[in-house]
C-alpha cells in the first residue's frame, strides 16, 4: 500500500510530515519513504559496488597472513586521481607523518583481523591495503571509497587530522569488510548498522593493540582528533552515546531514535543504539571484548546472516543466534547479548528468538 502511495505523492509531502506531523504520522511517513527509497537504493548501491568491487588491487606476496600496505599522497586533490607513492610495504618511515601513521594503523588493523579472526585482509584473500593521505584541502573527513581509505588533514579548527586515531583507520577498513560480507545498504537502520560495525571493530582494533579489557577501554571513537572548535573528548562514545562532545546527539536507546533524512537517514546518529548494545554485551561478558563479543558480531558478518536492508531487530536476532551457536543457548554470552538488545530497546521479550531456535 505504501509503495502505491509513494509513486504518486511527492517526497516533499512526506518530508513535511516528518518535520511537523504527530509521532504516528512521522513513523508512517518514514516507513513510506523507506520503502520507496529501498528499491532505488538496492539498485543504485549494487550498481555502484559493481563498478567498484572489493578486489585485490595488488597481489600481496607471501601467502596468507602477510600484510601489504601502500600509502599515497593525494596532493590535496579531491578527485581521487593522485598517485604519488609515499610509502610501500617494507619501506622505512618516510618524512610524511600522516603517511607513517596511516601505514602503522593499517598494519595494526590488519594484524587484529588476522590474529583474532583469521581474516586475511578486507576480502579475506590478502587484498592490499591502499591509503591516501592529504585528501582535499583542509578536508574534515576520512572515508572508504570502495577500494581505498582516504584521509583528510582536517581544517585544524574542527579536526586536526584522522590518521592519528587508530580506531578511525580501523573504522574505515571495516567498511571494506562490511562491503565484502553483509553489504549493508548505507541508509536508515541498515546504514546505521554499517556505521556501528565500523565503530565496533575500530574500537576492538584499538583495544587489542593496547591490551585493554572491556572494563579498561574508553570506548571512544575519534579520540584526540578534535580541534579547538569542538568541545569534548571524541566524536562518539559507545559507553555513553550522546556525551562525546558538546552537540553529540547520538541516542543510546530506541526511545531516542532520530527520524531524519539528513546523513542518509541518520546513519551516524542512530548507530549509537547498536554501538551501545555492543558495549553492554561486551562489558557484561567481561574480559577482552574481541574474544567473545567481537567474535559473535563477526560471525553474523561472515555467515551473511542478515540481508543488505537489515533493520536493528534483524541484526540483533542474528547476534543472539550466533552467540547461541558459538557458546550455547544458555551461555553467559547469549544472555549478555539478549540483555543488551533488550536494554537498548531493540528487542522485546516477544522478539527474542525461541530457545529451541537458538539451540539448533
Amino acid at each position, binding site marked *: 500500500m505504501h509503495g502505491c502511495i509513494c509513486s504518486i505523492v511527492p517526497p516533499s509531502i512526506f518530508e513535511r510530515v516528518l518535520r511537523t506531523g504527530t509521532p504516528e504520522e512521522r513513523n508512517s511517513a518514514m516507513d513510506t519513504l523507506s520503502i520507496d527509497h529501498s528499491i532505488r537504493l538496492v539498485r*543504485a548501491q549494487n550498481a555502484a559496488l559493481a563498478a567498484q568491487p572489493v578486489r585485490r588491487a595488488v597481489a600481496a606476496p607471501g601467502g596468507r597472513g602477510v600484510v601489504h600496505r601502500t600509502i599515497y599522497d593525494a596532493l590535496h586533490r579531491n578527485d581521487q586521481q593522485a598517485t604519488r607513492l609515499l610509502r610501500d610495504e617494507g619501506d622505512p618511515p618516510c618524512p610524511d607523518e600522516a603517511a607513517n601513521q596511516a601505514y602503522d594503523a593499517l598494519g595494526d588493523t590488519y594484524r587484529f583481523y588476522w590474529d583474532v579472526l583469521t581474516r586475511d585482509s578486507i576480502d579475506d584473500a590478502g587484498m592490499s591495503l591502499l591509503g591516501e593521505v592529504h585528501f582535499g584541502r*583542509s578536508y574534515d573527513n576520512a572515508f*572508504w571509497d570502495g577500494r581505498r581509505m582516504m584521509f583528510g588533514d582536517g581544517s585544524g579548527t574542527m*579536526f586536526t587530522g*584522522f590518521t592519528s586515531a587508530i580506531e578511525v583507520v580501523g573504522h*574505515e577498513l571495516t*567498511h571494506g569488510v562490511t562491503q565484502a560480507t553483509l553489504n549493508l545498504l548505507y541508509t536508515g537502520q541498515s546504514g546505521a548498522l554499517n556505521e556501528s560495525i565500523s565503530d565496533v571493530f575500530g574500537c576492538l582494533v584499538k583495544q587489542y593493540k593496547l591490551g585493554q579489557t572491556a572494563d579498561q577501554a574508553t570506548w571512544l571513537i*575519534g579520540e584526540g582528533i578534535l580541534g579547538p572548535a569542538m568541545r569534548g573528548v571524541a566524536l562518539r562514545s559507545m559507553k555513553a552515546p550522546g556525551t562525546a562532545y558538546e552537540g553529540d546527539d547520538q541516542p543510546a536507546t530506541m526511545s531516542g531514535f532520530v527520524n531524519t533524512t*539528513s*546523513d542518509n537517514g541518520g546513519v551516524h546518529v542512530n548507530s549509537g543504539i547498536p554501538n551501545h548494545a555492543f558495549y553492554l554485551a561486551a562489558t557484561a561478558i567481561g574480559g577482552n571484548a574481541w574474544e567473545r563479543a567481537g567474535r559473535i558480531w563477526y560471525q553474523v558478518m561472515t555467515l551473511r546472516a542478515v540481508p543488505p536492508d537489515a533493520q536493528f531487530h534483524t541484526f540483533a536476532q542474528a547476534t543472539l543466534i550466533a552467540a547461541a551457536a558459538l557458546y550455547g543457548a544458555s551461555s553467559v554470552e547469549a544472555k549478555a547479548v539478549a540483555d543488551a538488545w533488550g536494554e537498548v530497546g531493540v528487542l522485546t521479550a516477544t522478539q527474542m528468538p525461541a530457545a529451541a531456535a537458538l539451540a539448533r
Partner: protein
Amino acid sequence: MKEGVGGEEEQLDVERSGGFAGRTLRVSIPASALEPRERTAIEQRLGRPPSPPTGPDRFVYRFRLHGREAVVQEDMVPAELQPLLDRLSHSWS
C-alpha cells in the same frame, strides 16, 4: 536584487551532513551572492530525487532555494558548485 516572499531577500540554505563525524552543519547566504552558473546548477537539480549514497562516510549536501531542495552526495557535486562549497568551507555552524 531578487526578493522572496514578504520582500525579504531570497536565501540559499545549504546543509552538509554525514562524513565520518556525522555532524549536520548549515549555512545560509543571500541567493544574490551566487554566480550565475552556480544558481543554474542548483536550480537544475531542485526537486530531483535525492542521489543515493555512493559510499560510507561521504558528505551529503542539501541545497534549499525557492522553497524546493536538492540533495547531492559529495562525489556527485557538479564542478560548477565546487567554488561555492569552497567559499562556504569556513562558514558551517
